[in-house]
């Protein structure tokens, strides 16, 4: 393959090994743009303020990543995180023991959802769609109007300020690297990705695919709970609808980060970058004074642009290399 083709592959995000790089290039570009608008952004406090709001989203993206790696899609993650937030902002504050029990039950329910999907072979899109109503409904029953506060421990974690590097960056790095390590350096991670990509083939090899898929949901559920707890520490309030946008954002984050819906095709470090890109775009737009009505639209156009370039690159390259890309 010529160097131009290789370069084109990488730039359009079509090189599997390097697909995680592009989101970070975008992150750097956005940070540079932000810095031009407001130099204080790159200071310790500036970065803390800008990035700490993205910690829950980053963790949620990693949860969605595990589900996508297993070949599914979780459309309920927004409502689920809202439910965790509601429990954490009320029961956990009033009575930690009962709060932990509720969280535990919610966690088991999430894993049960994964079990139902794979034991019955039902399409994950629809089961998670149905469960999103259930999570949201339970959250609304528990908290009809937004209220609540946050357990102290959560707020202090979210406000943690170690020397040199802002706490939020440390948190994101820890979760990101841990996910990367589990998915690419452990047998379980490999099994998850293989099953997600080609369940019948892996099943025929004698692997207990149901257990592998359950493991993926178990990890995703834990991450979703952490995301909900982080969000509570940040907002110090409860609201069933707080994370509705997470469904869209987590899927976009995984895809922008270099993943695809094929199953097993995920880039954990890229996904973290993807989540940060989506968050930073919002901040840039606010500082640039983009009409609030159009901020959502710009995010849509950006998504189309990124994926369109990747798609065009893929089509052009498969034609020129005869399908070798």
């Amino acid at each position, binding site marked *: 393959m010529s160097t131009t083709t290789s370069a084109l592959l990488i730039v359009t995000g079509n090189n599997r090994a390097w697909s995680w790089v592009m989101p970070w290039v975008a992150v750097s570009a956005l940070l540079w743009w932000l810095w031009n608008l407001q130099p204080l952004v790159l200071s310790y406090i500036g970065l803390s303020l800008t990035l700490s709001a993205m910690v829950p989203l980053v963790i949620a993206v990693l949860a969605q990543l595990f589900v996508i790696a297993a070949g599914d899609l979780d459309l309920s993650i927004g409502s689920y995180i809202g439910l965790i937030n509601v429990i954490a902002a009320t029961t956990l504050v009033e009575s930690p023991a009962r709060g932990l029990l509720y969280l535990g039950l919610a966690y088991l329910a999430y894993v049960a959802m994964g079990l139902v999907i794979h034991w019955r072979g039902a399409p994950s899109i629809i089961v998670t769609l149905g469960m999103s109503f259930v999570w949201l409904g339970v959250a609304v029953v528990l908290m009809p109007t937004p209220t609540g506060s946050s357990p102290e421990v959560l707020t202090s974690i979210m406000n943690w300020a170690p020397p040199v590097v802002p706490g939020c960056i440390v948190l994101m790095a820890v979760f990101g690297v841990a996910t990367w390590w589990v998915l690419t350096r452990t047998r379980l991670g490999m099994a998850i990705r293989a099953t997600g990509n080609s369940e019948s083939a892996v099943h025929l090899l004698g692997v207990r695919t149901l257990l592998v898929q359950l493991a993926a949901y178990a990890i995703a559920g834990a991450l979703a709970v952490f995301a909900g707890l982080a969000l509570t520490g940040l907002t110090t309030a409860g609201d069933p609808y707080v994370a509705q946008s997470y469904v869209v954002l987590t899927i976009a984050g995984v895809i922008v980060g270099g993943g695809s819906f094929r199953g097993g095709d995920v880039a954990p470090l890229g996904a973290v970058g993807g989540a940060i890109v989506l968050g930073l775009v919002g901040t840039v737009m606010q500082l640039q004074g983009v009409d609030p009505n159009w901020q959502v639209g710009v995010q*849509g156009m950006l998504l189309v642009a990124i994926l369109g370039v990747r798609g065009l690159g893929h089509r052009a390259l498969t034609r020129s290399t005869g399908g070798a890309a």
Partner: protein
Amino acid sequence: MSSPTTTTLARARQAPFTPVVVGAALFWLLTIAFTDRGAGGVLLESLAVAFILVVCGLGQMFVVGTGGGAIDLSVASVITLSGYLGTSIMDGSDGRVLPALLASVAVGVGIGVVNGLLVVWFAIPALVATLATGFVLQSAALEIASTSKAGVSGSLSGFMSAKLGILPVPALLGMAIALAVTAFVRFGVFGRHVSAVGQSAEVSRYAGIGVAKVRVAAFATCGGSAALAGFLLVGYAGGPSLGMGTSYMLTSIAVVVLGGTLVSGGRLSAPGVWFAALMLTLVSTFVTVLGLSSGWELVAQGALIVLVLVVAMPGTRPTRA
């Protein structure tokens, strides 16, 4: 050995929409049991309310039918935009209802074409492409909402609340449209092409079917029907609102799949969409009749979707050898 009854029963058991017929009947009976409103009244009211969902669901059915897990997530935004667009063109005048309707539907079809082209030319997965266009449309709707103060025309509202005897016009329309689409899918070429593409795009290509054209047309149909739904919804609700489409985004997909259309594509079931829409509406009615809060309504709808899917529909588990 097999009498006419057993053959009919066997065929009914195999029909893709049987689970939702049973579900709809069940919740109809449950609702009647807990309220003193007449059985017929409950049914007709629910049919009228379900009308909008039927229209969106039928459009979504074509997209899902093309296979590959394609779904249209821009439906909610198209409904909202169409509502605002239609209202601002109508501006309270009866004479402008028709141009407003045509304009809204045309815009919806255009959006569908854009969605289809994004999927076909740029190889963007349908889920993400429609999500993105949905965002752009949301902004457009916000723009119109903040600049326009138009009102709905009286004749449109009248039409949506009219009755033919005791039958609400929307209920009749819903049945008529569902029947028409059923016939269209069964006997028309487009429906066959969508099924073929859903079953195997490769083979369809060899059979001479323009797969890309079929996909774009499916999205166009979905966009057009969502726009129609949005237009009619403002007649029903008395005016547009920013959240008017949100409840239809996921429920339009739910009614398609529960109704028996395969997510993997290849089998369309228009009667299923109609029955599933009726079922979901009856569930909401039932929960309201029981006097439970709106949170429980959500739980009931969600639990029902999962239950029908898991209990009554065939799944795909890999088998050893």
